[in-house]
């Protein structure tokens, strides 16, 4: 079967079903990374683009590494890249159970923003957004980051008060935010139903103009390629089956491809966090839930802003291919199934059509679901664990994609120094027992009510 390789610019859709398999896509002896450029692209055109080198090696596990990262999603690969680039750590491996980017990195709605309510979240996500802004140049890989603006809609007086409060908090901390009137929202998104009889009346909105979308697979492949060029072993089809702990300190991991010794181990595998932590005798403040997303058939450009409504929990954007990308509520019970409820499709479609009636003419092409690590306060967990040299990056709920570069940057810092940077210190594993939660929504310790 001829599957597409990651260096081919396959569309956002194909990653869901036509995922590239490592065995088909990678040859073991590949030449060193070739820098991508406009001239190279032109030169490639003369021989039908047949001589592009593989984007990264198919690495086999070596007996020992300084740092082993468990989980080859965006966060894990970004961590490996910054460990090699910024911290000059020598021997780094990323272990991925399946193929890189096959988990939540390929199942999100690609929205990027940093307009969170609480200062701890703002600091982490704004670092991430600043890294996004230079990421394509940094990686020499077009991650198609498009700052088209991320707009929250306000549907009531209470909504507008809440949005104004959030906007003030953001601007006090140097993050861009702009409160829009109903007319301004209408000019930005002419297709929005602003009529008095609208199902979800719009009073205004809060926009972060630096927010937008990025190409999810390109982020994974860009980090993998750049990390590989710095000597990181990206090892696919390698599932961690056990953690070796001696005297309260981790010394290595057992995998389906043999035992690997490690100086430090960083867990970074959403959907597998609880099972991995259980191998070290730990119980995490995490429940796994399902979040679905859908795309329509591709159409001409009709929505050039990310539309979100936190009151009805619907988000709408249009991919560069023209598909309308929709997301909504999670399924509201714990599951690892990676398949969503059919009634949720109806809920989300009804909400989206209520906001943008023109969407009713579109046919839905696909739906998919990802397993989210729901933490108890809606904020991620990054920090040391009670086991020495074992670190945890988990609990991103359904906001992990936007944090990919910032999470990688901070987790690399943690794995290199062993001490949490002040930016991630509030996101410690023990914050729940200390009562120091970072509860963005203010709903209390309930993972499925985020």
């Amino acid at each position, binding site marked *: 079967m001829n599957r597409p390789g990651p260096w081919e610019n396959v569309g956002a859709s194909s990653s869901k079903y036509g995922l590239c398999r490592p065995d088909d896509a990678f040859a073991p002896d590949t030449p060193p990374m070739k820098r991508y450029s406009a001239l190279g692209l032109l030169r490639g055109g003369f021989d039908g683009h047949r001589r592009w080198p593989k984007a990264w090696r198919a690495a086999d596990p070596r007996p020992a590494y300084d740092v082993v990262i468990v989980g080859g999603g965006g966060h894990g690969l970004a961590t490996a890249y910054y460990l090699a680039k910024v911290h000059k750590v020598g021997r780094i491996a990323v272990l991925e159970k399946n193929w890189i980017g096959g988990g939540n990195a390929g199942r999100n709605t690609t929205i990027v923003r940093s307009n969170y309510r609480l200062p701890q979240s703002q600091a982490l996500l704004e670092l991430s957004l600043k890294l996004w802004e230079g990421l394509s140049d940094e990686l020499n890989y077009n991650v198609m980051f498009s700052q088209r603006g991320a707009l929250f809609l306000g549907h009531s007086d209470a909504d507008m008060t809440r949005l104004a409060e959030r906007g003030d908090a953001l601007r006090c901390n140097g993050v861009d935010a702009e409160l829009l009137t109903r007319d301004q929202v209408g000019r930005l998104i002419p297709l929005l139903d602003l009529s008095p009889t609208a199902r979800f009346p719009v009073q205004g909105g809060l926009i972060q103009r630096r927010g937008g979308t990025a190409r999810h697979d390109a982020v994974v492949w860009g980090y993998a390629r750049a990390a590989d060029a710095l000597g990181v072993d990206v090892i696919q089809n390698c599932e961690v089956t056990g953690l070796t702990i001696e005297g309260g300190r981790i010394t290595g991991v057992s995998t389906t491809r043999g035992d690997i010794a490690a100086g430090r181990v960083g867990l970074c595998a959403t959907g597998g966090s609880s099972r991995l932590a259980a191998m070290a005798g730990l119980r995490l403040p995490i429940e796994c839930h399902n979040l679905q997303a859908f795309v329509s058939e591709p159409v001409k450009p009709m929505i050039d802003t990310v539309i979100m409504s936190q009151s009805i929990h619907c988000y709408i954007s249009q991919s560069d291919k023209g598909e309308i990308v929709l997301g909504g509520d999670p399924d509201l019970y714990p599951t690892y199934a990676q398949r969503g409820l059919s009634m949720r499709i109806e809920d989300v479609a009804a909400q989206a059509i209520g906001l943008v009636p023109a969407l009713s003419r579109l046919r839905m092409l696909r739906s998919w679901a990802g397993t989210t690590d729901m933490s108890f306060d809606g904020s991620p967990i990054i920090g040391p664990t009670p086991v020495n040299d074992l670190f945890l990056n988990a609990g991103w709920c359904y906001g992990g994609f936007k944090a990919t570069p910032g999470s990688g940057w901070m987790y690399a810092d943690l794995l290199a120094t062993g001490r949490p940077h002040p930016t991630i210190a509030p996101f410690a594993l023990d914050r*729940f027992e200390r009562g120091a939660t970072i509860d963005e929504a203010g709903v209390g310790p309930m993972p499925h009510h985020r």
Partner: protein
Amino acid sequence: MLLIPCPHCGPRALAEFTFERPVESIVPLDASTEAAVAHLYTRENPRGPSWELWRHAYGCRAWLRIQRDTATHAILATEPMERRP
């Protein structure tokens, strides 16, 4: 969509039910502070059979214990809340 056999009403659609919390999150009345924190703020989060509290919120409104497989969504057992201490 799950079909949940309510012990009072028979098989009913998921839309009538609300998931409340895993049974393991119930704090025993005589728990120490450490045990209470562990019950409240940590989960086994199993991939497989799990005992959970559900409520037939839009039906008979009874609280139920349901054993459900979190990987396959199979309902393995349902029982009224009062059946166990």
